[in-house]
């Protein structure tokens, strides 16, 4: 088959189970694709792998991608979206619950530096002055939240609540998406060049990946145990954790228009949300023609 490399946005966890299912079931091979999967990590910038030619396709956060297109003139196109709703949310302890943006006033919120702009935008959308919230860096470790050093953190709601439960506390959360920051996540991004030269493979990738995800989400508890000693091995987490994640992400991924879809309505919402952050997204940055071929 022809080689296609994809850069993931994080380490091997349930966030990418669909692709693993597709790979192990041979869906990519069936599409004539020889997939090279590159795991990500906290300091991996997926778009960088695209620019450097290290990967043909990357899973990204759309605000970053669009900003790169606008500011740097990066030749990117978004050809699909894994998450219809960004799983990023504000997580807090049930004992000191923060259930809506207004509860954040006067509180300390830990935000991954990458997401600070998005969070500030979400606050503004909800008529809250970002100055009224104390934003500190977040390094994906919920301990300060558990210890009460911070009041809330911005993280994937698909995962942290589980961790917090394991530590004997209860978590509550709300999605940024539900408070006006309506963007995708794990957007499938390629360069214009790749779009031209590897269109067939990309369509094949989308088709195979969709199949894999559909298969995976049929019963989110089925696949993670199978990958215990392969894909997940060494990630330091439990299979129960991955099942929780897989289950929690199901509603954020599924779409009546088909997995990975980017409906005109959703794209418009993304453009709208990003514009509030000062990022000028345009319709032509989203290329839905490949999805149409799938």
């Amino acid at each position, binding site marked *: 088959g022809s080689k296609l490399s994809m850069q993931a946005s994080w380490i091997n966890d349930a966030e990418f189970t669909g692709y693993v299912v597709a790979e192990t079931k041979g869906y990519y091979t069936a599409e004539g694709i020889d997939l090279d999967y590159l795991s990500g990590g906290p300091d991996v910038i997926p778009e960088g792998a695209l620019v450097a030619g290290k990967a043909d396709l990357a899973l990204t956060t759309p605000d970053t991608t669009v900003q790169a297109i606008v500011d740097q003139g990066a030749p990117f196109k978004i050809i699909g979206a894994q998450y219809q709703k960004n799983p990023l949310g504000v997580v807090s302890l049930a004992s000191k619950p923060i259930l809506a943006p207004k509860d954040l006033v006067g509180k300390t919120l830990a935000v991954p530096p990458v997401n600070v702009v998005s969070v500030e935008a979400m606050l503004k959308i909800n008529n809250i002055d970002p100055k009224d919230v104390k934003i500190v860096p977040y390094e994906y470790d919920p301990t300060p939240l558990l*210890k009460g050093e911070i009041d809330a953190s911005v993280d994937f709601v698909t995962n942290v609540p589980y961790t917090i439960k394991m530590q004997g506390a209860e978590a509550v959360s709300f999605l940024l998406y539900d408070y006006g920051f309506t963007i995708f996540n794990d957007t499938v991004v390629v360069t214009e060049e790749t779009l031209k030269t590897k269109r067939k493979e990309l369509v094949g990738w989308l088709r195979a990946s969709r199949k894999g995800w559909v298969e995976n989400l049929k019963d989110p508890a089925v696949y993670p145990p199978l990958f215990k000693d392969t894909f997940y091995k060494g990630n330091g987490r439990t299979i129960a954790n991955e099942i929780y994640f897989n289950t929690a992400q199901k509603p954020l991924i599924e779409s009546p228009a088909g997995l990975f879809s980017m409906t005109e309505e959703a794209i418009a919402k993304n453009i709208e949300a990003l514009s509030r952050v000062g990022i000028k997204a345009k319709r032509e940055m989203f290329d839905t023609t490949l999805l149409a071929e799938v």
Partner: protein
Amino acid sequence: MRPVRIGWVRLRPARWKPSLSLTLEVAAALAIWELAGRMKWIADGALPAPSAILVRLWIDWADYPPHLAATLTTAAVGFLIGNAIGIVCGTLFAFSPVAERLFRGVNVAIFALPAIAIVPVLVLTLPSDGARIVLAALGCYFTTMTATMVGLASADPRGIDVVRGWGGGRAAVFRYVRLPAAVPAILSGLQVGAPNALLGSILAEFGGGGRWGLGAYLIGSLGRAEPDRLWGIGLVATACAAVGYAAFGLLGRALTGSVRAATLPTGTAALPAPALGRSGRLALAAGAVLMPFALWWGAVAASGLPAMLVKSPLDVFAYLTAGPRAEGVRERLIGALAETLPPSLAGVALGVVAALLLAVLAEAAPRLARLMMPLSLFTQAMPLVALTPILVLVFGRGTAVMLAVTVSVTFFPAYVLLAQGLAAVPQGARDLGRAYGASRWRELRLIALPAAVPHLFAAIRLAAPRAILGVMIAEWLATGTGLGNLLNRARGMLDYGMIWSVAVLSVLVSVALYELVSAAEGAVMRRRGG
């Protein structure tokens, strides 16, 4: 026990005397830690008890082998490469002060470059393990290079006279006097290198996206809010670092004894100073400024990466001056620098003082100092990001945390070099103080420390560039201010122009600090004579 001979080196294996009181001290320290962990004294339990860590290690043990293997191999290869280059370059610079001047900026830049800024670029330019090896090597290069130079410069002039007295030139002086005399110092460089190589390899995993390695394991474990796991990983890394540290330390101690002069030399045989006229000095200064930029340019060209990712000096200049956003960028940079600089300066001072205190402690209470060593090594081999919770819980998110992080990243190389300098003080000088009943403190102040002034300055030169780095790490992890925050946010925005600008700015400040220390050193050494 029979001494072992390796060439001119004779090692007398120290007899292992299991001392009861040392065992008691270790037991006491562990007991206090255990209690602190159990009673949640520190950071509300974010510092786990040793028993909890061990239990956790036991449970997780099956996870470790592949991670450990990946980290150890890359760290070891990087360690070998970095130290080899460090020793070779240290030698070269020792003998060519002109080359040393020319490359000073480059050297300091290598030492001061924030890993979070270069890893993404390295990862994109190099094959999978390449970035880890390079970062591990970078972690060793500068300290070993510095230690090599200090060692070569501290040779006894009498020995040099002897070699020259039989017609020996620079090469013979190097081979028969300077190099043997420098071995303990070089070994102290290797001691620092052991944890640094490990940390370098681990940090590269954060940006490398590989699956195997303690760093990868750490990332996966971060989100679990289980400090005992994180500390377990840290302790395993520390144990590996400690093996290297102890091995080179023992070798160094065995050698220092045999390298130390029996009688006091009348001075030290300083290395040649550049014999240059006015125009020569000007040309050299110009070259020294241009060299880093030239190499930077070359590296950018060689990387073959598109201009969006890697910026040439001209690109950075354009980013800072041209375009509608340039002014805003400059304002942010200056504002951030103003936030970063003051704690950095305080950090240099505190880092050196911490190094000095520990070195003094190692003299006055060697056992207590040895007890501190695991903790010191832990702070070196453990990525600070994993300690964020405990850092913020104990120190908050203000100046205290910045200083704490800065001290932890500055003191260690400074300490090791300083301790080596103190160990190398000729017996005759020590005897002099003791013959008048000098207290440990007086002996240190009047004899050992003045004798180790070259080492002290080298220690400060090591601490200065690291201080900025330390503050930036704290800003990135805890406070969300200053250059560290700017860098981190820029990464999220793919604002490579900003990433490069911050990196360049932090390096420039480091070089300036380094030059300041070097100038002070020159003045003091001139006044000091011999």
